[in-house]
């Protein structure tokens, strides 16, 4: 069931963790369709399966059953290295704990993904400068992560996620460790990128600030979709809350 009109499709997606005494159904028969340019928030209480669903969509984890199509490709059919390549060229990740490479500067962290893509030096320096400007960190380009604040690190992480010119950005609780002002600033940046470059964003979040910016909110309970509502027109998420 590959519906090509949607860029992300999950079909009866289920993930069961049976490492403990009792198997845990983290994602339970999820059927989700996401269109190009959506700014979607996955919400729900802790343990509802938001991160697991995001990991499955991003090809970081294998489902127990069901399928995930991203940009027309069934991720289940890809081998390990093909999946890594697919992620490298199509998906940008932003994690909760920034996750920059500690020994690289802000500029090098952004460039890292492009190096993996074997982009030319000219292309890399141009894109890195562009992204640093976009996230407002040109003056911090030579600072290592431990010389940056949490908000600055997360902005570098967003820039890194966008360095490979991905079609999708999957962000796992990107504002969880940020203060309101920094979170708003980060969301402005992501919103702008979504609006101007048509990049599809999917967030897993508890944060009302993110939920308020999303134009679609998918609520998960016990691994299953409980509610799926359109909260704003795709262009509205640019508006400040």
């Amino acid at each position, binding site marked *: 069931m590959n519906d090509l009109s949607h860029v992300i499709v999950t079909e009866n997606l289920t993930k069961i963790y049976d490492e403990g005494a009792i198997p845990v159904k983290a994602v339970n028969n999820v059927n989700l369709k996401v269109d190009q340019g959506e700014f979607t928030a996955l919400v729900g209480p802790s343990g509802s399966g938001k991160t697991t669903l995001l990991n499955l969509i991003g090809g970081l*984890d294998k489902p127990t059953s069901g399928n995930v199509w991203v940009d027309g490709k069934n991720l289940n059919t890809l081998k390990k*290295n093909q999946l*890594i390549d697919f*992620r490298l*060229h199509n998906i940008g*990740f932003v994690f909760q704990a920034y996750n920059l490479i500690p020994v690289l500067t802000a500029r090098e962290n952004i460039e890292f*993904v492009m190096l993996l893509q074997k982009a030319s030096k000219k292309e890399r320096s141009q894109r890195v400068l562009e992204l640093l400007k976009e996230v407002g960190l040109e003056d911090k380009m030579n600072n290592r992560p431990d010389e940056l604040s949490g908000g600055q690190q997360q902005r570098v992480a967003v820039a890194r996620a966008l360095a490979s010119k991905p079609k999708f950005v999957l962000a796992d609780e990107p504002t969880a460790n940020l203060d309101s002002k920094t979170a708003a600033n980060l969301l402005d940046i992501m919103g702008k990128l979504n609006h101007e470059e048509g990049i599809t964003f999917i967030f897993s979040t508890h944060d009302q600030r993110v939920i308020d910016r999303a134009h679609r909110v998918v609520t998960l309970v016990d691994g299953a979709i409980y509610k799926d509502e359109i909260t704003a027109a795709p262009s509205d998420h640019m508006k400040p809350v």
Partner: protein
Amino acid sequence: MLLKLAWRNIWRNKKRTYITMCSIVFAVILSILLDSIKKGLLDKMKENVVSIYTGYIQIHKNGYWDDRTLDNSFEWQPALVQSTEENKDLRYVIPRLESFTLAASESYSKGCMVVGIDPEKESRVTALDEKLDKGSYLSPSDKAVLVTEGLANYLKLDVNDTLVLIGQGYRGVSAAGKYPIKGLIKFGSPELNKGLVYLPLKESQHLFAAKNKLTALVLSPADPEKSQEIAQALALKLEPEYEVMNWQTMMPELDQVIEGERRENVIFQIVLYMLIAFGIFGTILMMTLERQYEFGVMVAIGMKNFRLSTMVILENVLISILGATGGILLSIPIVLYLFAYPIQLDGKLAEAYEKFGIEPIFYFSIAPKVFYSQGLVVFFLALFLSLYPFVKISKLNPVSAMHA
């Protein structure tokens, strides 16, 4: 990129890197010292007997080595000497006539080996003149002897005293002679020091009534390591009446001692390297486990497991190379000093060594192999130990790693 990342990663935790490097440095120094002293001792042991006395290769009449009597000597053949001298693999060919006799002074006597030599050629090959402790060296026309120091002491003789030699000459004739002692020779090997007398070749042939006879042609190969191949090639060329033997065949017991010592050394070094291995492995284990999350993120954003493994291997190899290089550099002045000033044993310990026929001096070797082989061992050890993170990272699942 991988090298840059690896280089920066090893300096993330400077203290740990320094501790690991120091453990490698000390182990490499210790291992080099161990190897140097062992090689120095074995080389000296070989030099004392092989270079100074027997030579690396000898040509005899067939059967001489099993029954070392003058009756098994052979005629000096200019053609044989010339053809041997023309061999490009050989540097020198020296003639010798050897036989056992009784050496006596006024009150003492002792069995000894009399060696008839060409003094000039002998000094070129075995540097016999440099072993002169007292008196002066022989000239070809001398009717005098050089006596080893141990024998002279036993017989209570000194330079210019008279030494009497009594024995059996060629075909059973009696051999007796009275010779002034021109010089005393001191060898490193206590065994050789006890019982050698050198006579000019002509005079020895006269003493043993073995005119124009030789018991051996001692050959000095350009590359002593190839003595076996050279001996085999020579044996094929020469008439069947001659036997060609390399030093290992002539003295299998010495070869066995050297081989045994080498093996013993290998065991010590294995123990030492096991200690280094645990040090390096501890660091590798920590570096691999504490960075699981980071590795997970790197794979998640598109780095292949193989490249990540390569990066971690590079980190280990870099630490090991730095440690091994440091160890080699620091050991050079120590070994050079010990090479110039070998450790001289004295007192009862020295006596005990001499009793067992071992020179009581610890010589050190400065052969390049002593140094670089340690670096290579550490390098390959690091590569081997890197198998752990290599396998671990190859199997790494980004989600599990980020939740570890």
